[in-house]
């Protein structure tokens, strides 16, 4: 029993830090996301990035794009629900939530979301049970990568 507790503690200490980093975080945060979302992970490589696709148990396909320097520069998702955006947007979640509230005042109604700030772009679209999203940090995009091409 004692050894199990020690083992448990070691497991906690061994978690890659920062645990809650995804967009803007390093590649180890992808695994933290997979664990949090209890999904399966598939990795494919392109010329200037690596794409990690997490299929969550709620049926959402989450893709995290990692640059050659090891930073997550974009995330996308498609599925019947949102993934945990606090987990997925990591350090950018607060900025995102504030931007949504700021935009409401001038928006005059509801519709797809488009946050376009110098350091953060978030697009969320779709309808009930069919939600698509994309978030990226323009400064982190590898050379030659266009955000429109990331799906």
């Amino acid at each position: 029993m004692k050894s199990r507790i020690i083992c448990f503690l070691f497991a906690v200490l061994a978690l890659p830090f920062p645990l809650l980093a995804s967009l803007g975080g390093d590649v180890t945060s992808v695994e933290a996301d997979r664990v949090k979302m209890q999904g399966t992970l598939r990795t494919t490589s392109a010329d200037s990035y690596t794409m990690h696709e997490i299929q969550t148990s709620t049926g959402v396909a989450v893709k995290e794009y990692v640059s050659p320097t090891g930073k997550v520069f974009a995330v996308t998702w498609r599925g019947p629900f949102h993934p945990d955006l606090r987990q997925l947007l990591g350090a950018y979640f607060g900025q995102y939530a504030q931007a949504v509230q700021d935009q409401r005042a001038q928006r005059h109604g509801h519709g797809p979301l488009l946050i376009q700030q110098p350091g953060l772009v978030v697009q969320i679209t779709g309808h009930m049970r069919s939600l698509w999203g994309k978030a990226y940090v323009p400064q982190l995009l590898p050379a030659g990568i266009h955000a429109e091409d990331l799906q």
Partner: protein
Amino acid sequence: MKPARLQRILALMVTGVSTLTVGCGGTSSTSGGGNGGSGSTSNVQAITVNAGPAGGYVDGAFTSVMVCVPGSTASCQTVSGILVDTGSSGLRILSSALTISPPQQTASNGDPVVECLPFLDGFTWGPVQSVDLTIAGEHAKSLPIQVIGSSNFSTIPASCSSNGAPENDLASLGANGILGVGIFAQDCGTACTQSGASNPGLYYTCPAAGCQITTESVANQVQNPVSLFAKDNNGVIVELPSVSGSETSVSGSLIFGIGTQSNNGLGSAMVYTLDPATGNITTTYHGATYTNASFIDSGSNGIYFLDATTTGFPVCTNATFWYCPSSTQNLSATNQGANGATASVDFVVANATTLTSNATDAAVNGIAGPNSGMFDWGLPFFFGRNVYTAIEGQSTPGGAGPYWAY
């Protein structure tokens, strides 16, 4: 310790945690259906495109509903300023707009059930309660609805607020409520009956100690009210007149049922069935095809499509969610259903800043904005068209729902 073992332990830890956050299966009884009683049923509800109860809304269709404490003819209230939304399912009313006190839905252990519903631009949080709904001559008895922003459940769990920003008051919602009359019979469906990690986390039980995600039976979920009508329950038609430029308001109708009465036949409308995986149709624009990336939604306040680079229309300087072309654009696209039905759609994109410069204009044709890789045919699409939304699994003269027709 080997990494594989560490992973197993981590997986166990996570499983253990999530098991703690579910449980509490089953909920109290609610009875569906009910009979309106009298013979002829009025199925026509007036709707108005106006500035809405908060003021300043552009391109939202509003209506009113009568809600009663179930079984009561005295504890009743008419709530106006309810947004008509074919892009969601379920009736949601702001707590601040309610003067009656509907009964709270409880889980089998007696804990109150509270919902977190994600939208595109935020989420609503509030308890699931039960009302008898009357709209036009239609009745939905013991209808589970969401009461948004109740002070009894003011603490929003982190797993709910992770959806973004709350829309729990009049200022952020822009309406006293949302009448979701979309393609689904409930807002969540079977996913919310699953326990563990497969549960998307829309329903919670909230004892005093705090809220935890729970399973919710399909029957107890917030229901598309149309599904609970005794008749005219297979879908709706939204009918709005043509709008040229900007007008203060326009009036139209929300008609219940498709092919159930003399006033709701399909006529010459073409049925577009949906891709089952996405609930979308396909749109072709300027030679490019956007497969299963297009939908029709009265709850979106513009036609949102593609992006500035692809369309060539600049976004507005102070409103990057809208297009601001220098001159009005008369455009055409082609919609295609999963059934192969294909026809062209004419639509207008105008300068949104100019269109909305007169603050009293709330019905505006030409509002459009970016929506990368997708087409969201919002309320301006409905101007001058009769748009049918058929509910999943319901039979109609045009085949079984879900589909859109126009």
